[in-house]
């Protein structure tokens, strides 16, 4: 299939990663953070001081204890970090540097039936790599998804280029795809660009779809909406291409090998590049060789949907990039660089700044300033320009704010996830935090209707 996304916006940021692969220092500390998984209540399976290996379960879903989360390294459980009301924030593991595997028996998955395969993936700790729409949470093992989606490209600002990362990784990728194809009666949809690497364009066991257009063309939500929209009661799974490789390595070697390559980008780092690291590594280990300017914000993930982290924190489970941006905590005089400036260096999707008259190749400096104050909805038609769904975004958000579940269902909440609204949030004149509103709506629908 060929689909074209017309509505959207490519945000041109300075600090895109150079295509240089660097080896990160091996992290001493690793962590698994339950907060990386929306709607999850963890139940601990280890105590501080316990010995663990790569693939040892660390905690499980309290309400569905077959879903386990495993250690990416071997060593000792260092700390259970708790927050308010003793909520578990992270379980840190002090690595012994050996990466001893709990299990390294290769299995022939094609001989397993689906339920055996599922229970194997659940036990191995790979299951959480699979996520589902609607609700955008970890896939439920009992579901039979109508299809599985993989987007082979990321259109977010400063995002990693999987063509570069996964070049020549066909073996691992196709082994992963094979597992995926066993998990659904439907097809595995792999969305690619015209310029995609062979690893994607020649992939087997999938239906490849060509996607054209600006961000959010790379978001699976939009791709699902255009290729196979979700109705109430239906479930679609999705997975990141690098996570497919983790599945593939498991299939080939039987090991839990959470190696991945992330992009390190943003204006406040001296050398934007790609870094080889391991899921759950400490931010410090990744940033070790780079010089980070003062007053920077470190974001695990991309600048639109990522999470703010400190240097002593850890890379998010689903994140494949670190973005280092200047904090925008300074005042800007209104005429020179503030709200009434000519603004040749200020990026805006609205035509009230000259962005749209300047060459498209121009890149812009961004900081984390809100560039205004939060207001009620005033301007209309703005979200619709960057929201390529056949859904009325503002009306859906209003139904969420008013907790009107029936309206949410009618207006299409099953088809969206917070990241689909990231651009709406970006362009919003009234600076409304739309993504968190959508997350609340999804949580409510999950609690009440699923």
């Amino acid at each position, binding site marked *: 299939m060929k689909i074209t996304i017309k509505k959207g916006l490519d945000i041109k940021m300075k600090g895109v990663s150079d295509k240089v692969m660097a080896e990160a220092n091996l992290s001493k500390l690793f962590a698994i953070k339950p907060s990386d998984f929306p709607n999850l209540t963890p139940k601990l399976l280890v105590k501080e001081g316990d010995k663990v290996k790569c693939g040892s379960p660390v905690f499980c879903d309290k309400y569905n204890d077959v879903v386990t989360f495993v250690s990416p390294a071997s060593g000792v459980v260092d700390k259970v970090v708790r927050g308010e009301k003793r909520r578990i924030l992270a379980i840190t593991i002090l690595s012994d540097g050996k990466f001893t595997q709990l299990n390294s028996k290769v299995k022939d998955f094609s001989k397993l039936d689906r339920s055996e395969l599922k229970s194997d993936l659940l036990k191995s700790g790979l299951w959480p790599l699979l996520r589902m729409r609607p609700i955008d949470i970890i896939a439920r093992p009992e579901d039979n998804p109508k299809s599985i989606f993989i987007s082979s490209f990321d259109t977010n600002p400063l995002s990693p280029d999987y063509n570069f990362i996964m070049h020549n990784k066909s073996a691992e990728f196709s082994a992963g795809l094979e597992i995926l194809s066993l998990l659904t009666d439907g097809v595995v949809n792999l969305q690619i660009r015209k310029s995609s690497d062979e690893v994607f364009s020649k992939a087997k066991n999938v239906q490849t779809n060509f996607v054209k257009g600006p961000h959010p063309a790379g978001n699976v939500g939009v791709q699902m909406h255009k290729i196979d*929209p979700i*109705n109430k009661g239906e479930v679609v799974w999705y997975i990141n291409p690098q996570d497919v490789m983790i599945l593939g390595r498991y299939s080939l070697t039987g090991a839990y090998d959470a190696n991945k390559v992330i992009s390190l980008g943003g204006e406040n780092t001296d050398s934007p590049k790609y870094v080889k690291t391991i899921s759950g590594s400490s931010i410090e280990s990744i940033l070790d060789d780079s010089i980070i300017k003062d007053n920077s*914000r470190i*974001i695990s993930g991309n*600048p*639109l*949907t990522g999470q*703010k982290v400190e240097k002593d924190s850890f890379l998010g489970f689903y994140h494949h990039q670190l973005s280092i*941006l200047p*904090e*925008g*905590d300074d*005042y*800007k*005089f*209104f005429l020179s*660089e*503030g*709200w*009434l400036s000519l*603004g040749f260096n*200020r*990026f*805006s*999707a*609205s*035509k*009230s*700044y000259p962005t749209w008259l300047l060459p498209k190749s121009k890149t812009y400096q*961004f900081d*984390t*300033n*809100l*560039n*205004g*104050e939060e*207001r*009620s909805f*005033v*301007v*209309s*038609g703005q979200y619709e320009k960057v929201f390529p769904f*056949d*859904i*009325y975004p503002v*009306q859906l958000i209003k139904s969420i704010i008013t907790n009107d579940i029936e309206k949410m269902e009618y*207006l299409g909440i099953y088809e969206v996830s*917070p990241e689909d609204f*990231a651009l709406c*949030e*970006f*362009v*919003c*004149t*009234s*600076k409304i*935090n*739309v*993504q*968190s509103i959508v997350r609340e709506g999804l949580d409510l629908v999950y609690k009440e209707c699923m």
Partner: protein
Amino acid sequence: MKFLRKIFDNAHATLNKKESTKKFFPLVDAIDTLVFTPNHVTNKGAHIRDAIDLKRTMMLVIIALIPCLLFGIYNTGYQHYRVLGGLDDATWLDMVGVGSLVVLPMVVVSYGAGLLVEFVFAIINGHTVHEGFLVSGMLIPLCMPADVPLWMVAVATIFAVVIGKEVFGGTGMNILNVALTARAFLFFAHPTKMSGNEVWVTGYGDAKLANMLPDGASGATALGDLASFMQDTPALENTQAFQAKYSFMDSFMGLIPGSIGETSALMCLIGAALLLWTGIASWRVIFSFFIGGFVMATILNLVGGNGYFDLPAIHQLMIGGFMFGMVFMATDPVTAAHTNAGKFVYGFLGGFLGILIRMVNPAYPEGIMLAILIANVFAPLIDHVVIQTNINKRLKRLKTA
């Protein structure tokens, strides 16, 4: 800049010292955030944000209104000398002088009264001052007749901001356009000062009282003369006589009496160009509003039969508040339809009804005001239908799936 910054920081610190003065925070904050884009950083969701904010959006509308304001000032003086005599001796400076003395106090009163209400509500509700009134404050004087008393401007503004906006929850929550609410309030509460033949030309009423009016002087607007076609004693003989008195060019340029800012179609179009160029106003509303008005005027052209209905449609649209309402009132994003499809219907309805009310009901020569208010009321219904179509489409997909 640092010096200015210090002043604001000190002001905030002084207010924060005492519990009793803390609530006056919006006063300082409003001026502070005007001068400096604040240092707020993103703490949820997207870490980077578009440079646009509500202040810039509103300020661009005000900039788009400046041609209308300046021309309004000039025309107010021009009409004064034209009707009351002395046009040949008056320089454009005289006209601007007379106009300024009439218009600028109204602008000051409108902003003063409106911002007072905004500040009071901000302090009571403990939120910052929102920008919505910046535009309303400019629109209100521009849609008033030249001779409306200043106290009426103040009362109308306060009424519009309180009843039209704040009781609904402030900027972004109102159902009716605030400026038109002010105008409609005066129109029905003080009809003698908002309609008729004596309020459009500044000094006309006084001159009449003092019996100083030159022979044959008339303070009527083009719409007033047109409406008289529908009565037993028309002011003019026929359409040709009307077109001789108010040529198309004069109507287009705006050298005719009327509300201060509305007379010049050209200035409205300059404003429209800026608003469309910057993407602030919806082209859908402007386009369909014009089409709606044109269709209705053409229909009545075809009906014909009196001096009013025979006036060519395009000339019809150049007089009165049609252009001004189309560009600046109907496009108010809060009170217009919110869906793209709905905007077409909303705009068409406004233009269509505006001309209908104006031409068929001579008691309300300024039908545009009422039509836009009606369209405002209908906007949520129009949106409802559009959204329901989307919902039905989704339900249908569910059934076939």
